[in-house]
């Protein structure tokens, strides 16, 4: 693997070929905000929070750093007025959905996002896909998936799989940046899971 030399926020950074800008930045101790990124998973490129500005041969464009591969002599700026205002609005859009998410609140403070900017229509899930992708890529179980599309999209457990697999796993819970996942799980648990062992019956109380 050959080394690639690029510049991130004015700092010369060495990176491996095929590495993403995000990874190279993290290795160099430069922080880029992410929501849907998890190093165990294939990059999703959905939240767009990690958008950065790249410059090559004088040509400037905005790319998501969790996907864009490092290039020799690439100049990367992880913050600019434009990037900050994009991140601010992305957060404001997400906070109309999940106003109380701790993760979003922290980022909102950093970028001065107003959680009341857009009319709230809270459904808590911000479609980062971490649970869905973790269950697919790491656990290879596909017990949780997306249903519907666009603004109507939501996460849903597949009862046939979830009732067998989820009790002893729940590894996706800590990945969720909002409380949506637990809510969805509890809901499907109460509606559809078949309870055969006595220990399971104690988990739901009236």
């Amino acid at each position, binding site marked *: 693997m050959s080394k690639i030399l690029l510049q991130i926020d004015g700092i010369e950074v060495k990176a491996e070929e095929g590495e993403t800008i995000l990874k190279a930045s993290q290795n160099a101790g430069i922080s880029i905000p992410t929501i849907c990124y998890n190093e165990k998973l294939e990059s*999703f490129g*959905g939240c767009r929070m990690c*958008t950065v500005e790249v410059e090559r041969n004088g040509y400037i464009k905005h790319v998501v750093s969790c996907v864009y591969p490092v290039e020799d002599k690439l100049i990367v700026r992880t913050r600019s007025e434009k990037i900050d205002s994009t991140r601010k609005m*992305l957060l404001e*859009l997400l906070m109309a*959905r999940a106003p109380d998410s701790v993760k979003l609140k922290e980022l909102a403070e950093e970028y001065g996002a107003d959680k009341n900017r857009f009319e709230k229509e809270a459904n808590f899930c911000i479609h980062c896909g971490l649970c869905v992708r973790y269950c697919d890529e790491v656990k290879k179980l596909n017990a949780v998936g*997306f249903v519907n599309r666009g603004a109507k*999209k939501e996460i849903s457990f597949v009862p046939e799989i979830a009732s067998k697999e989820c009790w002893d796993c729940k590894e996706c819970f800590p990945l969720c940046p909002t409380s949506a996942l637990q809510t969805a799980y509890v809901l499907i648990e109460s509606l559809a899971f078949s309870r055969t062992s006595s220990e399971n019956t104690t988990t739901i109380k009236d």
Partner: protein
Amino acid sequence: MSQINSPAELDLLRKDILSKRDPDKPCISICAGAGCLASGAAEVINGFKTEIDKQSLNAIVDTKGTGCPGLCERGPIVVIKPSGICYLQVTPEDVPEIISQTIKDKKVVDRLLYVDPNTGKKAIYESDIPFYKYQERNVICNNIKIDSRSIDDYLAIDGYSALSKVLTGLSEEEVLEEVKKSQLRGRGGGGFPAGKKWEGSRNADEKTKYVIVNADEGDPGAFMDRALLEGNPHSIIEGLIIGAYAIGSHEGYIYVRQEYPLAVENVNIAIKQAEEYGFLGKDILGSGFDFVVKVHQGAGAFVCGESSALMTALEGRVGEPRPKYIRSNIKGLWDKPSVLNNVETWANVPLIINKGADWYTQLGTETSKGTKIFSLVGKITNTGLVEVPMGMTLKDIIYKIGGGIPGGKKFKAVQTGGPSGGCIPEDQLNLKVGFDELAKANSMMGSGGMIVMDEDNCMVDVARYFIEFLCDESCGKCVPCREGTIQMLKILTNITEGKGKEGDIELLEQLSEVLNDAALCALGQTAPNPFLSTLLYFRDEYEAHIKDKKCTALSCKELISYYIDPEKCTACTLCFKKCPSDAIIGKKKMIHVVDQENCTKCDTCFEVCPTKFGAVIKISGEAVPTPIPIEDRTYIKKSK
């Protein structure tokens, strides 16, 4: 059908097919495209067949269900070949008369001819109808000449001769060079040079390569690709095989939306026929070149017209775009080099090979060559598919070909480029159509949608409509598109409902910037265009909605009121009787008044009030005048 093993055998077969056909024998060609079928073409086709059998006329006349000739507004369309006599809006009842008059007595049935709405002049032949006269039909012209389900018909018009030419005399590089030289640009929306795209795939290291037809046409009101797929599927397949040869691919896909059942059926029939003749499969025409093609049906998502989403769907996964910074012609379907071109782009390829790049580049503008098919719809006299040379002005398309705006209404704008396109106002009607020309006017070519709007169209509502479409079709993967379009829709809906407020335009502009800049795929990046282009050219309408609560087009229901002018009302009771919500107070000899509380603004009173009275008036942005006191409402007939 037997396998054809060489170009020489193909020539023999073609000669054989032609020798059995008499070019002078009349043929009644009836459009069997989706539009005409919906207007009853199947019954007309059956009617002709039955009548011809009944009168035992099979020896002197043929019938043929053909592809769409374009003038869908006046279907079912019947053209008598070879003379070209054209009858419009034909019903099964007209069949005996056409047989006895035109086929037997060589006379024209006057009442079925095209009548120019402006001059009252009748046109006997298809070529005399202004709609056709000003077009340059290079690609869609064959639709009417063939039965779309007959490969022999396609062969009779020189079909697969371009493939034969390629496989016998041209190297892969020569084919690529010819396409590059033709400057053919993708007809699906992006306008990317096809030759350049092909070259990228050809030069890629991977051995396995794919060619794909993007037939996921989904723009509201657009049906160019549908007409080609339904009417002349072999032309697309032939183009695809040639492309595959040029880049070294042996497997292709046709991604067609399942909402086009006739297209799916006709394409599948065409593939089967091509396989039987040996145009697809192993050792095509004895050249040693192998190529197979499969049909994949889309499951109803607009975003699957986007290249990475289409390929993800082809791989059997949820059709969502992928965040990739490597072009799909290098790393596409299953990470292999994949050339994805639109239906119309592929259909242009056999023409370029047969007639040459020099012929092809004669037509067009500096950067847009050849012709383009547009679907001309909306407030236009002649609705249908038009194929024009690049560089024709919008004005000529709308007025010369489209016959202008019906009902004496005033033109307001033409929306081009599909939902992500833009609205072009009257003062730019001299704009020439071309990829870069339309982009300069803040619209785009897109796949060729052209929606004409008149003075009754509210431009804020038009923007709202398209954003709603895109919001519905957003896959929801990325935040800016999923959440941004819904916020834009909310704000635009508020504005059209009179709930717009100061700062709305600025907020929409900021949202547009974020979508444009940060969305994952082209759907999201261009989603703000309907808003941005209407704001650019019709800002006054936005401001009137927000500040004065006024819809100048008198279209937004929440902002208009109906009022009956007591000076003009003749107490005829027409509106009183037709009102579905009992919102008209009145009776005979008593001037009518609209009950604003009960009025649902359905427009019925406005429509039924005779033009000579014109008593029902729509108002917006002003208070409804107080009704005259009940004691003054007695109608007294004015003396003449």
